[in-house]
């Protein structure tokens, strides 16, 4: 196990920021800690890196207890939200900063290898302010990789990246991480980002991990309504004593559909139309959201027939809301 957080609690003054956090990460895995702002996710990174100390619980990194270890003794990489490059050092010196103790020829070799890995050849003499946002991020990653950590922490890694470039940079970054065979912990508030890059997701709410599972499980089988809504549009419906999470794409519009809903709202989203329906099922009234093809003409349409794809894997206990 690369990382193991057991019963972590942290208070700032009288505010309980984290309560009983339990998370682990295996070698080569990518974990994303997801939550709204103020949920305590960055605090978890600061605790792992050693910038903060937990009030309770233990953090094991590479199988060793870190309670007595200062940040500079942990060998955990950290890529900051705004990259935190040293503005007075050029790219070469930024990358070699953490390996100043080894001899200069080995340093140069190591930096050249990392420049190649991150596609930054030719930039070694430039200063941080002369680089684009994407290049700065790659320098920050190369600087972290230089010290050979087996675990790297990323704080809101893509929040400063242009929306158009985001997916490209995400793919590049994940590819570098996988090629370097390191484990990573990402912190983000973007559920789509979490679903696309992670092996595991820990969803944080009010200082607690509400759900810790794979992206597929967390999307299809949310542990609560709030988790379900956080990862996209979700409808919840009771059937045979179970509570089902039905995503809008699981409501299929069909003329011969078993259910009939009255349209209450239509919104156009470019690639599709989003329709809100009122309908009755087993004597109970529900509000459902479903998607309709962008070219489907809904003018003068008052109601729609549809079928629900019931997946047993999507159902939760009606009372506890647990899968």
């Amino acid at each position: 196990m690369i990382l193991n957080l057991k019963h972590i609690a942290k208070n700032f003054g009288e505010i309980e920021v984290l309560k009983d956090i339990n998370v682990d990460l295996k070698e080569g895995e990518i974990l994303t800690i997801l939550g709204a702002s103020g949920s305590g996710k960055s605090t978890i990174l600061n605790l792992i890196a050693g910038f903060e100390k937990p009030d309770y619980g233990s953090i094991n990194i590479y199988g060793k207890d870190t309670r007595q270890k200062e940040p500079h003794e942990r060998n955990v990489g950290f890529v900051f939200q705004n990259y935190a490059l040293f503005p007075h050092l050029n790219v070469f010196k930024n990358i070699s900063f953490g390996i100043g103790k080894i001899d200069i020829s080995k340093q140069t070799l190591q930096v050249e290898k990392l420049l190649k890995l991150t596609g930054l050849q030719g930039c070694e003499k430039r200063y941080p302010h002369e680089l684009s946002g994407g290049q700065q991020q790659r320098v920050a990653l190369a600087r972290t990789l230089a010290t050979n950590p087996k675990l790297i922490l990323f704080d809101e890694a893509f929040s400063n990246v242009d929306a158009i470039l985001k997916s490209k940079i995400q793919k590049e970054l994940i590819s570098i991480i996988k090629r370097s065979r390191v484990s990573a912990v990402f912190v983000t508030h973007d559920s789509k980002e979490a679903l696309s890059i992670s092996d595991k997701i820990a969803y944080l709410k009010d200082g607690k991990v509400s759900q810790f599972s794979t992206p597929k499980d967390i999307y299809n089988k949310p542990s609560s309504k709030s988790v379900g809504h956080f990862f996209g549009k979700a409808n919840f419906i009771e059937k045979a004593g179970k509570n089902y999470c039905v995503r809008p794409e699981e409501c299929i519009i069909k003329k011969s559909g078993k259910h009939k809903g009255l349209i209450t709202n239509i919104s156009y989203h470019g690639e599709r139309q989003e329709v809100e329906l009122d309908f009755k099922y087993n004597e109970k009234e529900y509000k459902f959201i479903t998607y309709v093809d962008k070219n489907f003409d809904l003018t003068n349409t008052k109601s729609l027939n549809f079928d629900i794809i019931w997946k047993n894997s999507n159902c939760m206990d009606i009372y506890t809301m647990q899968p």
Partner: protein
Amino acid sequence: MVILPIILIVFYGLGTDGENLQHLKDTVLLKYIGTTAKLLLFVSILSLIFGIGSAFIVTFYEFRFQKTYTIGLVLPFVIPAYILGFIYSDIFGYYSYLHIFLMDLGFKNYFDVLNFNTVSFVLALALYPYIYLMVRASFLKNANTLLRPALSLGMSKEKALFRVVLPLNRVAIVGGLSLVLMETISEYGVVSYYGVDTLSTAVFKSWFDMGDSGSASYISSIAMIFILVILLIEKFSQGRARYTAESASLPFEKIKLKGIKAFFVHTFLSIPLLFGFVLPFIWIVNYTFKYAKERIDEEFFIVILNSFVASAFASFIIIILAVILAYTYRLAPSIYTKYINKFASLGYSMPGAVVAIGIIILFADFDHYLIENFGFKELLLSGTLFALVFGYVVRFLAVGLSSVLSSFEKVELNINKASRNLGKTPLQTLFQIELPLLKNSLIIAYILVFIDTIKELPLTLILRPFNYETLATKTYELAINEMVQESAVYAFCIILICFIPIIFNLKDHK
């Protein structure tokens, strides 16, 4: 160590019950307290008029030379109050050209300028820039944010300025005023020269004339009560108000002034500028040239060297201490580190004479302890350069600390974290990352502290080694020995040094 002298003052002050003190209490102490309170009131009123009035006009109105006034109104800062006082006694005194000229015209009544009102006016001229700078910065920040809602509610621009913007900058006004008041309590040069007896002169009298450290401490404690009240009022005003805008305002559309209104504005602004800077500066330059040959001798260079040695050494220690305190706070911000910094800054709010008496008591106790217990034959610390440097450190650590703290704030904390995360210890991070990034800010902080120590008069007068003259003490001594015009040569050096931060600021503006 830094707050020990202040604690000792209170301790000694409370424990004193000698004959001298009883005599002081029976005769003049109440008068000293009354005069100090009256001086504080007069200086407050005048400096508020100059400070708020000028800040308000240059921020919200447009007229000819408005930009020149904006910069020019800061310039009185470069002339310390005591030098300003000496100059006005020379310009308007009994033997001044002006007086002789008036007598030649048949004007027979002697008009005495060496009085309380002139002291109030001189102190207001020297100190109003504190209010001007703070209030102007606050106006610039808040003007539009506060003004737009008022205008949208149908208020006229001028009415909105007076009724909304002005009252809501209360925090800056009180902040500037409290600095003015603290400097006024601390002032020794002008008040003693003009024969106005305040608590500051009383501390000197009881120490130099009566050699009574107990009485000096007692009076110092009373001065500290004044300071405490000022600090509490400032704290109270800050605690209740959180009106500042979150971000900088958009440029404000100024009200154009012409005709009679512009004339009044020029008249108003030219009073502090003319009397606070232009006139005294011309006087100093004039007499510097007149007496340069006579006064620039070996002694002149020794005085400069003395000033530089004491100030450079003290500023160096202050910056090192400030970096240690600020970096500790940066790495471990907590209520404890915050209060350590507050206590370390306490000396700045105390009058120079009070700090000096505290240090004399501390070092005398220490020296006697060494003599009695370790067989030392003479005083080790009292009356040495070390005592003077220590005095500067206690008094001006706050100046260095606040500059260094704000410099650290400009470097984001993640840069420090990134370095430690890459395997560097906090100390390595300080030397390899933080200090190289802060180099320029630290130089500026050093210069600011250096200037304050160069200007400091009362503390230097009490703590300097025997016959050790600095620019401030020499200027003062020449002035009190009827050689005010000759003192211009030394005053000119002080003013030249005080110009440095103004030049830095102008560069920043560009």
